[in-house]
């Protein structure tokens, strides 16, 4: 019907030209830094000098014997998986609650979503002032109830849990929005049919709602997991990675190794590991949830 005219670009050429800017940006801002990061990870560069030497895989060999890295790796898993788990639970609960029509529903949704729009650093500082030992709101409440003040962030393991909770509360609004969209896409006829068959609310939730929410869970889980595994701002603003290095995430550790310890080579090795780890986790989770999605169809 349509004849290709001489001098007119083919569809493929148009697509190629239109994707070129994005591809170029990816090359400049992702591929090149990644390759350079790998290159730096094979050196003993201090991060600013013009002199350095290649030291092979020494930085990678150091990874699993370095207590600082192991601690940050463990914390990153807690921040990533812990936050995602609780964000999913809270997100689904909020979504179920706020899907129903009631006065001020929009305001409630906005309030829950609001922290997700604020920079993590600011959220962290606000929370720091709530949990700090002196003048902290949490300790004021504890003392009002007759308890003793506690230095909440003074113990590394406890501080890690607190940071995980802060991250959960910060981003559960984002999960909620995704789940509300997911709930809205479930046809009412499923519930009507289930009611006719005598299924109660609990049975409907597990038999209809949850299986139908799997695509939303996939999206939300991946977004929250990647966000949690990359956590940086909250750690810096609440504890700065301390006491010692006990609350560092891999991202904040990279920053500390590069700029403070002046060990850019090792920092890059941690960076390459973090990239590979997050990519591997994302692929496995994506594959697992895709299988669940297929089973739910």
């Amino acid at each position, binding site marked *: 019907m349509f004849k290709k005219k001489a001098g007119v670009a083919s569809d493929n050429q148009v697509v190629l030209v239109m994707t070129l800017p994005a591809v170029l940006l990816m090359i400049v801002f992702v591929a090149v830094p990644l390759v350079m990061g790998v290159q730096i990870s094979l050196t003993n560069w*201090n991060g600013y000098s013009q002199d350095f030497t290649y030291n092979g895989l020494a930085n990678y060999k150091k990874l699993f014997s370095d207590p600082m890295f192991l601690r940050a790796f463990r914390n990153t898993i807690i921040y990533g998986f812990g936050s995602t788990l609780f964000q999913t639970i809270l997100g689904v609960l909020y979504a179920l609650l706020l899907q129903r029509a009631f006065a001020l529903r929009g305001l409630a949704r906005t309030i829950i979503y609001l922290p997700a729009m604020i920079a993590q650093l600011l959220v962290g500082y606000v929370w720091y002032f709530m949990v*700090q030992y002196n003048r902290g709101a949490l300790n004021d409440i504890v003392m009002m109830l007759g308890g003793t003040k506690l*230095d909440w*962030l*003074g113990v590394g393991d406890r501080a890690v849990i607190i940071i995980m909770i802060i991250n959960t509360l910060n981003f559960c609004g984002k999960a909620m929005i995704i789940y509300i969209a997911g709930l809205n896409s479930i046809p009412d006829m499923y519930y009507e049919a289930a009611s006719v068959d005598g299924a109660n609310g609990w049975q409907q939730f597990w038999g209809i709602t949850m299986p139908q929410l799997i695509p939303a869970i996939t999206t939300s889980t991946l977004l929250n997991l990647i966000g949690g595994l990359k956590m940086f701002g909250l750690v810096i603003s609440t504890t*700065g*990675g*301390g006491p*010692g290095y006990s609350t560092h995430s891999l991202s904040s550790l990279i920053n500390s190794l590069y700029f403070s310890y002046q060990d850019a080579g090792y920092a890059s090795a941690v960076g390459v590991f973090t990239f590979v780890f997050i990519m591997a986790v994302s692929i496995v989770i994506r594959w697992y949830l895709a299988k669940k999605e297929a089973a739910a169809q």
Partner: protein
Amino acid sequence: MKKALCLLLMAAMLLSGIAAAHAEPLSGELIIASRYTGVQGDAFTSIIEGFQAENPGVKVENQVFTSDYEDLMKAKMAANDLPDVFMTHGWSIMRYKEYLLPLNDEPWAKDIVQGLNSSILDEDGKVYVLPNTIAWTGVLVQNELLNELGLEIPKTVEEFMHCCEVAKDAGYVGVYMAGKDTRSPAYVLNLIAPSFLLNGADAAEIGASLQDGSFDWGKWAAVNEFLMALKDNGYLNVDCATADTAFQSETLVAKESLFIFQRNSVLVEAWDIDPEADLGFIPLPAKDASEEAYLVGGESQAFGIWKDSKNIDAAKAFLAYMARPENIKLIAEVCGEAPGLEGVEVDSGNLTKWFEAWAATKTLPWFDRVYLPSGMWATMRDTGSALIGGESTIEKAGETMQASYEQLRSQK
């Protein structure tokens, strides 16, 4: 005779040509990097404006970086693209030397305060910065509280611990530490290290071993033990590992704490809150009575010139302008520090009496800047923070310091 006259005439013309070239007004664009804000920023801006008024052909861009200054400068060094003039914040030799222009021939170089030599001269005697001020400090003290508790200024570690014990028993904090900023415990380690390592008869030997890599890190345990003694005896604030620096000047003004290991700028902040507060600084305690208490001093508000700058003449002119007594005085006064050039009289306000009181006190250089490789400050921050946070032991912290020392030396 004619020939000689001709030669003389030619020489005179040549010289007058050179003189004319020198008399030409300076021109170009000068980029200056600093981290001055607030009152200090205003003072520095006024110096730049004064320089520009005298040199209208030079356009100055003042790039102000605050907390990110060191990170940004590292990134700029990595790219070998630095500002024409930049602050070296105590690290002209150990970190920035590779990028700086030697300035020994500048007219102000002969006026540098002698006490600074150990921290700003390299092994060849070259100086790379104009040192506006000296960071001269000891332990910050709530003097009114010290007097109320009937305590004398402590001269030894034992006397210092006694003061803390008395303060604790009276319900006060012996040493306030804002440990959320891990520089706070690192300051303790950095300031007290000379007491155990570089203040006695074997100071030269230990100093040399630190610099040549043969230091016995078992000796570092005494430094860690000092910090742990403060923690274990309850002399530190309960939230020593998590308190924010925003409150450290307040705690002095409110007479809640007796001592703080920090720079004098904390006193200046405290006097902003209450100009009448009886605060000051005292020398750091000696290990025992056989040695003297000491202060720590070294390069502070210093500026150098990037050796590959395209505007070296303008940059040198700027430093010469900044080295004028009135400008050194201005910077020293707003920073609460002593001048780095001889012959400059400053009015340091409430600090003046303390500067005068300790004028004859033994002054040692900042420990990490002279004896440790660049980058170990971070290790001191983490090990100090881990010690007060119960995340490490004296032995482990010592091992971490040694490993970091060896790794950073291997980068050379």
